């Protein structure tokens, strides 16, 4: 479903090259994990996928379900089924969490030609999903992410993901900042979404998350390139030995 071909990306502000030829295909129903040292370009990849400004794609292509993503605006990509759970979710004072969620759900429905979700139906669904993630209803009323703890912000990302039912879910270090119980909640939220129509790209530093969300493939991103790909075993290897062996192999 997701096909990334020879993707090269520079930072717009200073021309620094960050992604240096990424090739990656995520098939429907599969979970791919991306690991890699700090600063290797993992978040950059997730931002470029989601259409954030500030990057220039100098080469390559990204397709989701056969459609070119790069020519689409961020909001069009979302409506087309792409979702990014941010490494650092943004605080938006004055915009209520529920208002935000309902606006987003209905905006996407509109693009897809579906009817708006009725207020009652929406509230019922949000409350139910929030409860599963142990997000209390008081938090739903607050401004988006304002005053949320690190872990609460991450759970809020997953709530949005569940409500929006994307085709491709990109999770950027959703596990960092989560306690063990929250990690289990979030993982079961993610696992509940796993089905043959949906793909996942899970960025993480820790193998532990992958015990809960078991990946079909693991890729190691170093300095803007995928230098090694394998199965879940590869994550265990990284957990034990760090990136030293892999870097040595490259040299």
């Amino acid at each position, binding site marked *: 479903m997701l096909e990334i071909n020879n993707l090269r990306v520079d930072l717009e502000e200073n021309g620094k090259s960050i992604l240096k030829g990424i090739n990656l295909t995520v098939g429907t129903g599969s979970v791919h994990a991306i690991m890699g040292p700090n600063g290797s370009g993992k978040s950059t990849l997730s931002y470029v996928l989601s259409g*954030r400004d500030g990057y220039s794609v100098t080469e390559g292509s990204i397709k989701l379900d056969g459609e070119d993503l790069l020519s689409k605006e*961020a*909001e069009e990509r979302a409506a087309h089924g792409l979702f990014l759970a941010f490494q650092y979710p943004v605080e938006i*004072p004055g915009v209520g969490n529920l*208002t*935000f969620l309902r606006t*987003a759900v209905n905006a996407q429905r509109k693009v897809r030609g579906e009817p708006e979700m009725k207020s009652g139906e929406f509230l019922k669904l949000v409350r139910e999903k929030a409860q599963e993630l142990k997000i209390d209803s008081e938090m739903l009323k607050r*401004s988006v992410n304002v005053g949320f703890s690190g872990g609460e912000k991450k759970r809020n990302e997953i709530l949005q993901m569940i409500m929006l039912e994307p085709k491709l879910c990109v999770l950027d270090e959703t596990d960092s900042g989560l306690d063990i119980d929250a990690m289990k909640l979030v993982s079961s939220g993610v696992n509940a979404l796993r089905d043959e129509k949906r793909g996942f790209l899970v960025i993480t530093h820790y193998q532990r998350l992958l015990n809960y969300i078991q990946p079909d493939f693991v890729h190691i991103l170093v300095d803007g390139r995928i230098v090694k790909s394998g199965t879940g075993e590869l994550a265990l290897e990284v957990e034990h030995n760090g990136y030293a062996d892999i870097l040595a192999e490259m040299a």
Partner: protein
Amino acid sequence: MMNLLQEKREAAKLRINTLKMPEGGWSFAARAAALERVKRTGLPSRRDEYWKFTNPETLVKQATESAALFKSDEVPFFETDRLKIVFIDGVFCESSSDDLVLNGIEIDRLADVIPNKVHWAQSIYGVIESRGQTPVERPLAALNTAFATDGVLINVKRTPSKPVSLIYDHSSENSDAILHHVIKVNSGASLTVLENGPAAARFNKCMEIQLAEGASFHHIRTQGRDHERRASTHMFAQLNASSTFKSFTLTVNGRLTRNEVVVELSGENSIANIAGACVGDGDFHHDDTVFVTHAAENCDSRQVFKKVLRNGATGVFQGKILVKQCAQKTDGYQISQALLLDNDSQFNAKPELEIYADDVVCSHGSTSGAIDEEALFYLRSRGVERAEAADLLTLAFLGEAVEEIEDESLTEQIVSLLSSWLMRHRPS
């Protein structure tokens, strides 16, 4: 070259020649005194420090610039049960107004009672205004006191069952209106006043408010619609012990608006909250000038002003908190912020604190900035279109001012007005 004072006096003379002061009656002495003030100070000039950011020329000069009438089937403001008092181009319109009768309050039309020898408003008319002339002169208000022939005088003895709604229609392209209202709220009573409408091509309005012990006054105003209108308005409020004054103004459209609010907290434990939200697109200049004097212990004041500006619109805020030596335990707060939606718009702010008491808490802040790009992207990444996301963030920005309104249904009406305005003014 003429010096500044000569020039201002000359401008006053020219303007005064076009106006006619009513003779006799209970208000005559106040009018004559106000006229003397105007003659002495002259009318504002752009060289005045107090008018540094706003050019008063069109507010001052003899003839008014014409203002096209804005025709629309826009929903009316304030869908709430209220006593309607309608002025058309600054003249009371009996046929469009409700009967001036409401339990607990006494309402007179100024024009009807001018010839009377005595009137309860005599102790207020021009009196609170003249107190508000120091330390900064406000000649357009004095001009108003001298020459106003219409307006309402409201004496609140007991809290009425509904708000009084002043509606200012604009029907002639060259109308030049002067209105003067006096509001007295007696001990323990409370009044809500709603104001809306474009009023006239040029509008000079003055409202004097006196709050007795434990009285409260709520004011919600929407100024807008006609793009070419000009207005200078003054509110002068004098607060006795344990009284509450709350005012919120929404301004949309209008070439030039200068709203001055002058509040004196002269009784202990009184509260004054003054808030404003404005949205301006293009040829729009909006000036909020606020002066709050703390002259008694234990009083709270808040000033919260938010402006959204685009396409060369200009916003001005001049806000002062003066704390006199006797006003210990003052809590004063002031914030003014502008959201500039492009590089052509500008915001000029002059926040001031002047404090002579030592046991006070006062804070002020002023900022101007663009839309938060991070937040915008976050919303877009969830599927919200750029324009809609920008509107959401803009409404959130205005929220702090709008939330100052206590009545929830009015808050909702204001928010929906704002969001439909934003929708109509999305950059194409």
